[in-house]
């Protein structure tokens, strides 16, 4: 086991370096420059050249790459766009995105799994068909469109749209009201972000459940007189949820990776918007650092999924 972990870690490290080099090349070699983004006739070309020098953009690409790594690890990496330390910029948003994604994930799991289980128990009943219909609807409705509809609905209902992380006017509100306000602002985007995942996961749970309850051991359990509830919720469900471990691999990077569209529609100050703005502004230090963080988390997620498989499923052995 220890040997396996070590080997896997080494592989991950090499993959990470590969990813960072590849993204560095793609990002910096794409057309455009962080400086001359607008055509300003009042700015002379000499100044642009000097600024490129200040940002080390005149150096060969491999030197720029090493400089980036050096600055990243010495904490002297600054954004081109606003001169702030890159890690500080990312840190102040990562919690916002984490919060939103965490709630969305909680909604997905807490609503989708029950839905899938009930659908499987009453296969082809009215409720099951309704669930199927809902899932297809959820998968096919574009999220941003639904988000606009929801915002329009809040305008109709309450007289103002739900935007950002909190109500803009909070003066004169008591503490519990402020907390409720934060929850309300969190709930709508999280719910809409969850719809897609819910639709998928509930289908997944349903089919997994249907497969398991046709297994021999379930029939045996029923035959020997185990109460049906216990058969379903104890024996069958546990086995049905095994494949969901795969989702863990995506869960960790998914929690951090922001959603550009949802964050823009709901004016949520998260990491997705930062990444998008930075790409548009060719803010290489920020883009690269976000990419690297995402890559690290994806690799860690995969790593944990591998380990968890071994723990949850005794049939899997690591050599």
């Amino acid at each position, binding site marked *: 086991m220890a040997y396996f972990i070590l080997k896997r870690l080494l592989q991950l490290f090499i993959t990470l370096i590969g990813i960072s080099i590849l993204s560095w090349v793609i990002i910096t070699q*794409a*057309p*455009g*420059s962080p400086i*001359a*983004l607008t*055509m*300003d*006739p*009042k*700015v*002379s*070309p*000499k*100044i642009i050249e*000097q600024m490129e020098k*200040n940002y080390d953009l005149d150096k060969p690409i491999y030197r720029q790459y090493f400089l980036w790594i050096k600055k990243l690890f010495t904490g002297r990496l*600054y954004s081109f766009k*606003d*001169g*702030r330390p890159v890690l500080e*910029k990312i840190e*102040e*948003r990562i919690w916002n995105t984490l919060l939103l994604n965490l709630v969305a994930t909680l*909604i997905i799991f*807490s*609503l989708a799994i*029950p839905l899938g*289980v009930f659908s499987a128990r009453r296969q082809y009943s009215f409720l099951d068909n309704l669930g199927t219909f809902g899932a297809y609807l959820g998968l096919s409705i574009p999220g941003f469109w639904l988000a*606009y509809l929801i915002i*329009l609905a*809040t*305008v109709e*209902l*309450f007289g*103002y*749209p739900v*935007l*950002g*992380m909190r*109500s*803009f*006017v909070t*003066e004169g509100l008591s503490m519990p*009201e402020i907390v*409720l*306000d934060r*929850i*309300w602002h969190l*709930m709508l985007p999280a719910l809409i972000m969850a719809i897609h995942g819910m639709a998928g996961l509930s289908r997944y749970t349903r089919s997994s459940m249907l497969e398991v309850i046709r297994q021999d051991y379930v029939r045996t359990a029923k035959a020997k007189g185990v109460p049906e509830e*216990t058969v379903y*919720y*104890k024996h069958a469900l546990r086995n049905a949820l095994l494949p969901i471990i795969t989702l863990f691999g995506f869960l960790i990077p998914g929690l951090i990776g922001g959603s550009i569209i949802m964050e*823009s*529609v709901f*004016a949520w*100050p998260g990491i997705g*918007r*930062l990444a998008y*703005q930075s790409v548009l502004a060719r803010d290489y230090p920020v883009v690269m650092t976000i990419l690297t963080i995402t890559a690290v988390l994806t690799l860690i997620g995969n790593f944990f999924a591998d380990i968890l498989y071994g723990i949850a499923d005794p049939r899997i052995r690591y050599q």
Partner: protein
Amino acid sequence: MKVKTLLFIFPLLFLVLLVVNIVFVGSRPEQNINQLVQSSIGDASFLNPVLAQDSASSDINSLVFNGLIKYDRNLRGFVGELAESWEIRPGPEPEITFHLRKGVLWHDGRPFTAEDVKFTYDKVMDEKTNTVRRSDYELVKKAEVLDPHTFRVTYQQPFSPGLGTWGMGILPKHLLEKEDINTTSFNRKPIGTGPFRFVEWVTDEKIVVEANPDYFEGRPHLDRIIYRIIPETSLSEMELLTKGIDYYGVLPHQYRRMNEIAFLKTYSQSAFAYTYIGYNLKNPLFQDRRVRQAFTNAINREEIVQYVLYGFGTVISGPFPSHLWYYNPDVKPFLYDPRKARQLLSEAGWEDTDGDGILDKEGKPFRFKLITNSGNDIRRDVGVLVQRQLRELGIDVTFETYEWSIFLKNFINAKHFDACILGWSLSPDPDDYMIWHSSQIEKGFNFISYINPEADRLWEEGRREYDLEKRRKIYWRIHELLAEDQPYTFLFSPLGISALQRKFVLMEEDPSGRKVYRPIKMEKAGLTYDLIKWYVPRGTVLEK
């Protein structure tokens, strides 16, 4: 059993939370505060006038910082801000001496002196500072502090646009002396001398400034100004309609909806910008002036303004925004006249000899590619209309759009294009030397390679001349020359539209000291020119 209960409890909890929330949200109190709430699509970057380039930062900086001078409300001359007065000593090496206002305090209570001005200038000129402002001061020979309230700058040669550059916000020396200006935390919590003091900046949410009680022109009447960052124009519109923001730059297609709302008043004003079709004059197709004139005659610009800008634009005849002093009103825009266009083209030798509907000359059909950058819907729509209108004339135009940086690098800067649709955003000073002078073909912005010796001489003269009346004559003549030559087809200058809640008024004191309210007026220098006099009379509603 436990698992089953859990499976029930989670969805239930969730529902309860949602209901509790909805009940609460329905009861938010309405607030009427003496403040102005604005929205911006993007967050600010540097709250430091030396480094800022984006409009969000510049908006805030103009509230927190002061320049030595600023444009007057008609954008003709200047009025003093931190400088009480100034004099220009003309000559081969002209000097400008600024007499600074005494008793001005920084927001932290320290006095403002000429040392701060010198410091700001030095910072701009420092090569390590990542500023594009340095171009503005390239002709400065020396800048010196004569005494704590006198600052003198000497130019290498006469350069009249130089005066306007002293409108740049001045930084406090005592706070930045030991800092790295590119990365200092000052850029996120600025201290200035301006009418509003910085309060807070919540990234990608809002920036708040409050009235500066010690402001040298008197405390602003508004208590505070808030910039909300709303990344979507349709959301800004919703916020405006539900009074979540008070003031908003309206897009033409939103105008009609805004105009119907009783509590909003809409204003419009020509922008310092125009859109044009630039012809690559290195291409033999466009070297004949008659061809370019024919194109301008063949393009129905009134129709473009009507359908693309919903009427919110002015057809222009030359390279300046139509509401300013250097726009020559005697030069009339070419009229839409396809017959004349056809005639001009045949004079230039273009006829449809083979009857295929496309004009040709010496066996070659008139065919070219029109390009613009993607992501700009107005330019795209203009391109489609122009393509059709020129097709009617017998010219085969292909129209393509490219991503901005590719467009710039591979086509415009490489001068590898036939014709392009682009726009210029200008400053109030008419000196567009960088765009039109033939010395700017190689590395400047004269990418269409326009050469006209008389115009060259006039552009040079215009930036050497300090007298407004003489400058006006020079630029009026340039306007005539460019209208004649048509190196661009000047299309239109868009109108900027804004919507403001009617609750705001200008509050002034009449001679007897009584407070009087006047409606807010659109000035040439913009709606917010008198911002420090804006006020929300509590509980009063002004009549239409």
